[in-house]
């Protein structure tokens, strides 16, 4: 369970997030919607501790995220960015194995086995030795998902996951997210894509000018 209490984030004199309070139920998919500049991506950055200069508290099962080490935090909450940010000098497989070895304390052999398993899960085993520049948007996203899930986070955030995907890949992503939900992971997604949100969300949060405007339960 991820709970956010009175989360406020300011950039200069501008308030980006204003007293956001919400509890994300475990094993659900929550979509955060709202117009551009409403603070959706900033909220994800605060949840994942990429931005730490916020006021308020973010807890995962009573653990305050800001008090965790980088390694503990990465094993608690992961993120797939809007443009994925795969490491361009590493192959798809190395993108998955490297965090496993450096952060997950896997041996080289264990990391390779785990990466192969994750790539198979996302049907990317044939692209294991491809570099990000040789992959399509949908393929890069699946590698980014595999990379984020390798560390077994309890919570996974996705920032605008369909913004660079065609309809086919969006549908594939919906299926993958539903399967992820079955494993008990809490998924938090920001999106502008109403159709995608309607297909995948259990709960929809609406942000407007940094404030949580409404909450609606879908399923």
């Amino acid at each position, binding site marked *: 369970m991820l709970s956010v209490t009175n989360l406020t984030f300011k950039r200069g004199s501008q308030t980006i997030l204003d007293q956001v309070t919400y509890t994300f139920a475990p094993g659900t998919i929550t979509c955060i919607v709202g117009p551009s500049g409403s603070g959706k991506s900033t909220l994800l950055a605060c949840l*994942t501790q*990429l931005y730490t200069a916020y006021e308020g508290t973010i807890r995962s099962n009573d653990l305050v995220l800001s008090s965790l080490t*980088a*390694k503990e*935090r*990465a*094993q608690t909450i*992961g*993120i797939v*960015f809007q*443009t994925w*940010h*795969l*490491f*361009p*000098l590493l192959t798809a497989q190395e993108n998955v194995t*490297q*965090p496993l070895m*450096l*952060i997950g304390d896997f041996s080289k052999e264990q990391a390779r086995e785990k990466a192969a398993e994750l790539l198979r899960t996302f049907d990317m085993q044939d692209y294991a030795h491809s*570099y990000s*520049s040789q992959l399509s948007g949908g393929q890069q996203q699946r590698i980014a998902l595999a*990379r*984020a899930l390798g*560390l077994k986070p309890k919570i996974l955030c996705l920032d605008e996951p369909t913004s660079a995907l065609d309809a086919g890949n969006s549908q594939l992503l919906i299926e993958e997210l539903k399967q992820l939900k079955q494993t008990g992971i809490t998924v938090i997604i920001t999106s502008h894509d109403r159709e995608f949100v309607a297909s995948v969300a259990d709960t929809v949060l609406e942000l407007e000018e940094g404030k949580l405007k409404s909450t609606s339960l879908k399923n």
Partner: protein
Amino acid sequence: MTQYTTLFLKGTGMTLLLWVSCSLLSLMLGLFAGTLRSTQLRIPLISPLLDGITLLLRGIPLYSQLMITYFAVPQLIGFAPSALLTGILTLGFCSGAYASELIRNGYNTIDKGQWLAAQALGYARWQQVRYIIGPQMLQKTFPALVNEYLMVLKSTALLGAIGIIEVTKIGTNVMYKTFQPIPVCLAVAAIYLILAALLTLFANWIERSYACSQ
């Protein structure tokens, strides 16, 4: 002219020694200073100090720096290091300032998302630099660094001014002795050209080896 072959070979050896040692020193200093001067990795007090040193070394001509380190500094410190050591340190530090600027710019051109992705995966700052950002920075700055070390090769000719017997100094001495400037100048130019071609070939080979990853 053939009786001077041994002299030219010795001069070439000295030029090679100066080139390699100054380039290695420059690369080490450049990596250190360039990393700490990049936007993401600045350290209070140390980074501004490195900015100042870089400005100084890039703002004073190398020849003037040699005059300062060879003639003025020994008076200040009370002893005179050898010309070879003075020359290597002066050219190495001067080139290191230029290399640090290239490396700093290299770091600053890396997509901020790469830092964020590594941070989100729990990489410590040193791991982000060692495994993710550093290799990308080196790939981006590699052609400019090769250019810098070609400049270092040519700048070794200036070290003759403080009495180091490198290939240009040998050429000048032979020219004064034989009054045959054309063959001597051609020989000296050919030696530099061969050394520069070797570095270019080596750099091209390295670039080709890593080309598949981008």
